[in-house]
């Protein structure tokens, strides 16, 4: 039997909030059947009957019969999601992408999680799976436009509670004038480098994180975004160029990503 690709869910909760004049939608979708996903994996969401293409969204949380997404309203697809109401049915495809390895891989290592803006979504998924006591060695660096984003996540996602056991550095650009990578580098000067970095966020941020990984010779995983059409490795819309030693490799973000291992002579070409 082939696995069904199309899933139908029902909106169990829909919260809309605005920070720094950007609108966000927190969607909780009641799903039928059982789905499993590791952090970094994503779904392709139908944004309405009249949308010709689905849109990719990372999984924020997946527990029992509930899938949560956090969506930034950007253009024609995400704007249509604003008109969805509690009880409406939604269709999505997935679970797609490679995702991170088993959570146990991260236990006992000195790990830095570096997130920028909406890059928090897969990181949140990861962090909410950790058993808190295992998290002692993990530092979270999270940058956003302003403090209001952290406050909103606190209010709607119980962010502080989920992250209770972690050492965290919240970096609001507006209030501190610093980027999350600045703060991460300051931390490293005082405390030394981690063994591994996991990062998701805007491309400029990922680029500087990768530079750090290359300078220090540690390992890392970057979660990348690409415009997608099929979401399942058929259309060639979403290539990521990787330099591995001397060789250029092209991988599709939707199937061989969105998580890409870097370090030890291997890097993403931005």
């Amino acid at each position, binding site marked *: 039997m082939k696995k069904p690709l199309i899933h139908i869910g029902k909106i169990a909760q829909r919260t809309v909030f605005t920070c720094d004049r950007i609108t966000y939608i927190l969607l909780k979708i009641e799903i039928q059947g059982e789905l499993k996903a590791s952090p970094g994996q994503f779904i392709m969401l139908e944004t309405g009957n009249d949308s010709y293409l689905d849109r990719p969204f990372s999984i924020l949380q997946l527990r029992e019969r509930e899938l949560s997404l956090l969506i930034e309203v950007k253009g024609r697809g995400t704007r249509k999601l604003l008109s969805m109401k509690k009880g409406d049915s939604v269709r999505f495809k997935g679970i797609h992408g490679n995702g991170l390895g088993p959570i146990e891989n991260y236990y006992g290592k000195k790990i830095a999680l570096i997130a920028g803006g909406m890059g928090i979504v897969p990181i949140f998924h990861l962090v909410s799976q950790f058993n808190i006591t295992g998290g002692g060695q993990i530092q979270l660096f999270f940058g956003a436009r302003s403090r209001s984003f952290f406050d909103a996540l606190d209010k709607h996602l119980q962010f502080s509670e989920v992250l209770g056991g972690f050492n965290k550095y919240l970096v609001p650009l507006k209030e501190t004038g610093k980027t999350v990578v600045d703060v991460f580098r300051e931390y490293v000067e005082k405390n030394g480098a981690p063994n591994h970095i996991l990062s998701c966020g805007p491309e400029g941020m990922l680029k500087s994180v990768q530079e750090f990984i290359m300078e220090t010779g540690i390992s890392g995983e970057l979660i990348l975004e690409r415009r997608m059409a099929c979401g*399942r490795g058929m259309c060639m819309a979403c290539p990521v160029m990787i330099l591995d030693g001397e060789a250029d490799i092209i991988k599709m973000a939707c199937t061989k990503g969105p998580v890409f291992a870097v370090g030890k002579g291997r890097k993403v070409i931005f």
Partner: protein
Amino acid sequence: MALSTLFLGKRFRNPIVLASGIVGYGKKFDEEVGLDKVGGIITKTVTALPRPGNPLPRVAEVDSGMLNSIGLANPGIDKFISDQLPYLQEHKTNIIVSIAGGTSEELVHLALLLDNIEYIDALELNLSCPNVAIKMQTSQDPRETFRAVDAVKAVTRKQLIAKLSPNVSDVVEVARKAVEAGADALSLINTLGGIKVDPVLRKFVLGNVTGGLSGPAIRPVGVKMVYDIKKELDIPVIAHGGIVDQWSALEYLLVGADLIALGSGLFKNPDLTEEVSAGLEKYLHENGATLADIRGELL
């Protein structure tokens, strides 16, 4: 059974084929749906040398369709033959290999390499690929079309399908030249040239600026071109453009399409193949008609 179709002397399980560039080389589609559900597959266009493709972003949604500027990203003919093609051999579906080249010599080179591979049923010449050198697609020029088809026909034993561009003022003239040069069938339409602008960022949306429009937005253009050609020429046609259900497939069949190709509609709807084949069967049953009865009924 009702959908079984004879095309270029081969038996097609149903009149549905997968358009070039939509399912790559078919492996993923086979896992999801099964290649045994379609009459044939047209593989992603392959060129002599590997092509990385165009700058990002390469896709954008527009009203009733999408733009793409993939840029014929492919691993090149050698890797295609060694790594991709063998997978298709194991499947009982018709295999049509799409090739493109900047010159007739390149097309001939490709055709010769593929000629000895027995399980390839036909070649599709993608004459609607962007030719950077002369800033024109081969099939926008009737003489170039003749030259390309003629050159390949001279060296191949395979059935030859010419894929035409809709970006022309008289598609029938181009089609006629392709037929005169020996094309055994035609495929149309490829995408229509288009641009999307982001007025907020005041930028072009696609990295390549221009792209190709596909989806329901182009269906009326496709139906007209198939109709115009079928009225004038006695040549089998694989119809492409905006097929998203059995009704859109029927539009093409009624104006004479021999096969219909599923394209970008498969991205959002992985069940499209089964929906179209079941929908067509139901339609024929309810109307007490055969495929042959309705094919070309409006010509």
